[in-house]
């Protein structure tokens, strides 16, 4: 069930009410059952896949604690292979074999590949990474193996973050299931407010911007340069509001019940460099790759060429994590490339480094450059087919920016969209302070936000973008 639905509203209300009425020792069971129900709303039998990886990693965790040396390494490897194997089968099978077929065809080798028409289990990429995080942390000795199978299952399946993150760490989450949570009015209000803010971002901003984005990207061959530029910028904010909105609902829902999940976004479009962007965007994923892959590959404590290779590997894999398609790989690779170019330029011309900007103009120049690069990369994220990407570039190359914007959205709604983007951008910078003010006047701000969300919301039940990953 999607967060922006009545089903979720009713589900959340029932689960949360029952949670606070229930004795602490049974709450984990309620949450686990609720999470199963939540997950099964998509494709019920896929609970079996989740159960399989949970069983594997539960026992792997215990075995990791009981062994040392090579055996311990083998156990970890098997656990990771099992998790990645599930991903490979359900998410990457067709991609892998399409490419093998293509390559074989190039070499004139006849290859027959069985077609596997499987629907991607929802949230697979997220809960798989969260499960791997557990076994790796147990391996490293940072987390004790969880003996309670139910609690471990809940760690993987906790419904607010089950299908689209944030990807949590066991050290941050598991112990919270043992802590008794009490009703705290301020905390509940804070959580509810964050949920409404998330829904606002999704239905008022993201789904409104998508009307222009879908129209333009649905017919790129007929679009002027102006249309393409506006759609590209709108998409940058659409995907941000869509994904961060989801995270807000997830974090807020968890907070209502007393759970603290990690923040996943920190005003990413305020970044003045690509590395900084990735410290502010999808923080749970970027830190996952940094902590478990980048550092394991040696990070930047290797030779410079190897360091650059590590960066490219991480970003290519990050792109691939998003989708089994070359456009996502290219998107990731572009970010890697932007980072490398930045690093090389900083080595050659240290005064160019972003953190050397001291003037307002300099900071804003870098901010706009970063936004430009990120938006350019988003084009590859949005457009699935190379032929369409080529068409986009060929239309842009015509430099037809003299035509006015020509989309079916009324001009007043367009101005509203721009106002929302600018307002969001401005408020994000001081979001802590803004949120505090909103919470102080909760009984005014909450109903007001609900009303504004209702009246300005675009309710076409569009699924959250990151659900597809």
């Amino acid at each position: 069930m999607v967060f922006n639905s009545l089903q979720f509203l009713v589900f959340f209300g029932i689960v949360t009410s029952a949670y606070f009425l229930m004795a602490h020792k049974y709450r984990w069971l309620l949450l686990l059952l609720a999470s199963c129900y939540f997950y099964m709303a998509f494709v019920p039998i896929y609970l079996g896949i989740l159960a399989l990886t949970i069983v594997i990693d539960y026992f792997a965790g215990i075995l990791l604690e009981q062994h040392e040396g090579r055996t311990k390494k083998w156990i970890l490897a098997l656990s990771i292979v099992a998790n990645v194997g599930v991903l490979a089968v359900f998410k990457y099978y067709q991609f892998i074999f399409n490419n093998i077929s293509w390559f074989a065809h190039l070499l004139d080798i006849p290859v027959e590949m069985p077609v596997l028409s499987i629907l991607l289990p929802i949230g697979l990429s997220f809960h798989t990474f969260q499960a791997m995080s557990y076994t790796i942390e147990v391996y490293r000795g940072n987390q004790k193996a969880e003996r309670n199978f139910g609690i471990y299952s809940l760690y993987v399946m906790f419904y607010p973050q089950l299908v689209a993150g944030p990807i949590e760490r066991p050290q941050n989450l598991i112990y919270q299931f043992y802590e008794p949570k009490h009703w705290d009015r301020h905390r509940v209000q804070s959580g509810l407010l964050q949920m409404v803010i998330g829904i606002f971002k999704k239905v008022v901003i993201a789904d409104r911007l998508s009307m222009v984005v879908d129209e333009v990207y649905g017919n790129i061959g007929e679009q002027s340069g102006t249309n393409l530029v506006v759609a590209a910028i709108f998409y940058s904010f659409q995907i941000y509001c869509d994904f961060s909105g989801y995270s807000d609902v997830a974090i807020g829902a968890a907070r209502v019940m007393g759970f603290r999940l990690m923040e996943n976004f920190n005003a990413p479009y305020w970044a003045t460099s690509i590395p900084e962007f990735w410290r502010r965007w999808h923080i749970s994923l970027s830190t996952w790759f940094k902590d478990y892959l980048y550092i394991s590959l040696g990070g930047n404590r290797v030779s410079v060429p190897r360091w650059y290779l590590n960066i490219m590997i991480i970003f290519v894999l990050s792109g691939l994590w998003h989708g089994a398609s070359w456009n996502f790989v290219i998107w990731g690779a572009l970010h890697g490339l932007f980072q490398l170019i930045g690093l090389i330029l900083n080595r050659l011309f240290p005064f160019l480094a972003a953190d050397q900007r001291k003037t307002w103009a300099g900071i804003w120049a870098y901010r706009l450059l970063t936004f430009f690069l990120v938006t350019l990369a988003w084009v590859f994220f949005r457009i699935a087919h190379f032929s369409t990407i080529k068409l986009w570039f060929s239309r842009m190359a015509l430099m037809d920016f003299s035509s006015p914007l020509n989309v079916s959205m009324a001009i007043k709604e367009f101005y509203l969209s721009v106002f929302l983007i600018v307002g969001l951008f401005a408020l994000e910078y001081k979001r802590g302070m803004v949120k505090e003010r909103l919470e102080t006047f909760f009984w005014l701000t909450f109903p007001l936000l609900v009303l504004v969300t209702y009246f300005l919301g675009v309710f076409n039940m569009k699924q959250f973008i990151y659900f597809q990953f």
Partner: protein
Amino acid sequence: MVLFFLAFVLIFGSSNQGMRLLSQRRYIRQDGWGADKFSFGDLYGLTYIKPFKMPRDTSFVALPVLETDSVKYKMHIIGDSYLYSFFSMDPRYFKKTGEVQFVRWSTPKPIPYRLSKDKKNILLIECVERNFRNLMTVKEIRNRIEAQAQSNSGSQTASRFEFLSRINSRLKNTFYHPTLENNLEFLLFNLGIWAPFKELKSALNFYIFGRLDNEVRVSKNWKQLYLTQTVDPEKVGSSFYPTSDEEVGAYVAQLNEVQTYFKSKGFDQVIFSIIPNPVGVLNTENKPTNQILSRIAKHPNWKGILVDPSLRLQKNAKENFFPSDSHWNQRGAAIWLGQLNETLKAL
């Protein structure tokens, strides 16, 4: 309190019987606790545009006065809301008809039919113009009125994972009502007390942003609401969708196949009735339609009987349709019934 209320809402929303009972009671009420989604027309219920808020007569069409004739027919009808919302399926509606079995297109499972041994079995297949291409096929009709299970017979090979698919469906149907979201919307928000909010939102979207619900369009003369799919020339079901002669020929072949098939299954006669999209009759858009119904009827290969009330509905057209509903009104329905009865008389 919250828990009990929400649990009640969820249980009620997951129960077909509960929803039926509640909707019957809600639609009777005229006050703020009554349902308003269809009381003023289904298209008003999608848009809440205040100028189109007009009470809709929901009574059945009066029984016609028919000549006394010997009963000859059993009518097997597959139809949509154009019929079941306006007729009670009383056999006295239909000339020379002693028995009626009615099956909705929306039936989830095929309903077995029993051919009469002492009456002529007439199969009447009715649907609205925007849907006939998809629905009036042998496969789709067999999904509604044949008792045998479909899909795994004939040329289709069973999937290796069919048992998984069955388990999945069973789990889904057990725990998740297929229309729960719509039911919850009905339970919580299909109330007259919310109408001012909905109308205000609609006014904001329509008058300031120029937007309506994606599914609805306002006619050029601002007097009628239409389903977008019947007006948008890019939609196949639209009255303005450019349709080549080859495509018309294909539809004729499709309907002929249906007729041949069901006659081979024992029906004495198959009658098709395609109700024209209201926009095609009301002629508010000042552009020619694709005339698909008349082109089918006049096609040299056409072998069947088609009850197409377009011409009759066009006389005083606006008196035959609701401005804020996708259907005809009682007058329009009665015109169709008259034409059908003439066809039955001539058989």
